[in-house]
């Protein structure tokens, strides 16, 4: 009986207790450290509440386009079908670049290799390679006759989406028979213990594991070998594995909810935003980008600059233009 009453109370309650005052942030796990940093500092500074969930870029957009969340982190630009879903539900959004991230290709420290070309990476990971490419000398006749073990980010991650897009040319078009994991620490573990291994992951993981794995320089389009580093990502020379990270903001929520607008202003205030982004291991955009973002926010400029998908070769200057 007591349970019945409780259940009854519980079922009636939401009707009048649904005033959720916390700002709702969701989206990509890659952007999560950034969202977390801002949510934490904002709450300390103002006492206002911000909560952050992790549903992945795609899962985040599903909630965002239903109007459930006010902010959605994304490790790639919004796709056409996602933007259409938003439009169907009457959700207008602002697309705000927040940081740059780089992907790194890593090998075991015992591997003498220092540089690889994008074409060789494509040969190793493309769909046609499945069951056929299993030796380093198949990538390049100069490489040793040595078994090739492949690691990489799992298919649900934005890291995988961007890697396949940038290296293979089509999002999601990779071989299926490599060790794919949603946890980049597993890739570190695998590559650090296997001299035959190669893998790809977010640059932040490489920085934390210097010595255990060796990041390779990348040669793009027959160009020079470029080392993966935040500096090279910032200058736009480390291509094609540099990608922008975004925060999408619901315009109606900005207009109607004061705490959403307040948090958005905090998010793009160059006075502390640059340091906060940098503290998460990502590359902060230059101050001009944040100033432009503030103006974009004030002007409520909606829509996506990227027209339905990732682009290779985006530099911070492009993102500035996007604002």
């Amino acid at each position, binding site marked *: 009986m*007591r*349970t019945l009453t*409780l*259940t009854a*109370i*519980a*079922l009636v*309650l*939401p009707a009048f*207790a*649904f005033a*959720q005052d*916390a700002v709702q942030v969701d989206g990509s*796990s890659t952007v*999560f*450290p950034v*969202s*977390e*940093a801002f*949510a*934490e500092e904002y*709450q300390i500074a103002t006492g206002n*509440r*911000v*909560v*952050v*969930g*992790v*549903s992945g870029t795609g899962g985040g957009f599903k*909630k965002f386009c239903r109007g459930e969340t006010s902010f959605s982190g994304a490790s790639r630009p919004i796709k056409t079908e996602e933007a259409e879903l938003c439009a169907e539900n009457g959700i207008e959004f602002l697309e705000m670049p927040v940081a740059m991230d780089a992907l790194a290709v890593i090998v075991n420290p015992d591997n003498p290799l220092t540089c690889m070309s994008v074409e060789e990476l494509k040969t190793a990971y493309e769909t046609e390679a499945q069951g056929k490419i299993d030796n380093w000398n198949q990538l390049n006749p100069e490489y040793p006759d040595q078994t090739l073990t492949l690691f990489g980010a799992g298919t649900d991650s934005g890291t995988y989406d961007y890697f396949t897009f940038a290296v293979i040319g089509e999002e999601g078009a990779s071989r299926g028979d490599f060790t794919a994991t*949603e*946890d*980049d*620490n597993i890739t570190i573990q695998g590559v650090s213990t296997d001299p035959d291994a190669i893998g790809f992951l*977010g640059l*932040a*993981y490489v*920085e*934390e*594991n210097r010595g255990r794995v060796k990041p390779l320089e990348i040669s793009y389009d027959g160009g020079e070998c470029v080392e993966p580093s935040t500096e090279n990502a910032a200058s736009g020379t480390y291509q094609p594995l540099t990608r922008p990270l975004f925060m999408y903001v619901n315009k109606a929520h900005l207009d109607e909810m004061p705490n959403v607008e307040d948090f958005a202003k905090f998010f793009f205030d160059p006075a502390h935003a640059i340091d906060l982004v940098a*503290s*998460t*291991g990502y590359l902060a955009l230059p101050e001009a980008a944040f100033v432009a973002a503030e103006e974009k926010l004030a002007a409520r400029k909606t829509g996506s600059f990227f027209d339905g998908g990732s682009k290779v070769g985006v530099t911070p200057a492009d993102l500035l233009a996007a604002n």
Partner: protein
Amino acid sequence: MTMATEGSLGAAVQTDQTAFDAVRRAKQKDIVFATGGLIVMAIAMTLLLTLIGDLVIRGAARIDYGFLTSYPSRLPERAGILSAWVGSLLVMLVTAFLAIPIGIGAGLYLEEYARKGWLSNFIEINVSNLAGVPSIIYGLLALGLFVYGFSLGKTILVAGMTLALLILPIVIVSTREAVRAIPRIIKEGAYGLGADQWQVMWSYIIPAARPGILTGAIVGLSRAIGETAPIITIGALTFIAFLPPAPVTPDFPLISFAWLNDGFTVLPIQMFNWVSRPQEGFHIAAAATGVVLIALTFTLNGIAIWIRYRLRKGYRN
């Protein structure tokens, strides 16, 4: 005569010999089986202890007052699990309140009242099957039904209801088994003395089955506390740096249910998030969270064992 004696003696010796051989073979088999069992148990225990030991070695030093009373943070050394353990505890509270009474009620009804027939067989098979359904399925069901169907949102209440569904089959099956294990003599004796069905139920069956029922309930809760998949599916948060409103208020009516409608996170999600971060400091925090989670589970089990022991003693006297 001598021949005969010798002959029968020889036969006796021979029979003795075969008997000895048979006994020896049986003993050998016994030793092989026992050794095999010992090895298997040693492997299982070593694995378990290695896992726990690894967690404790890496995480125990990180657990202090600050860790238990701080919110998550982007800085590993500042991060704590306050919102996570409070969330876990509140979700467990809802789960226990829903799953235990409903599960016990259903189990008692199915075992004692329901007419035995194809329908009750069908239900029995399905309840047993439900106990083996992967937990993510319950998460998807809850997302569609509770979160969107009933528009309850991603709240502590919904998480509690989801986990209650998940462990309901465990509670029902263990209740039925506990009732089935009661000697018939007790029941028939009570009926023989003229007790009606309700009196038998209340005064004999429920008290006798209580330890078994309780074990089932705790096994269920111990499973629920470690579940991540269904909770993530219904949309639990990862970063939350405040607590739900307190269940006890200074004003009338002194009890508040507002916490049921708050967002939340739980220990396994916090742990999962930290494990996948690049910084070593977060890995240590994740190990520490694991230790807290294991300690919580052990405490739950410990309470169950203690209550069961008390109840058994009470029943025998």
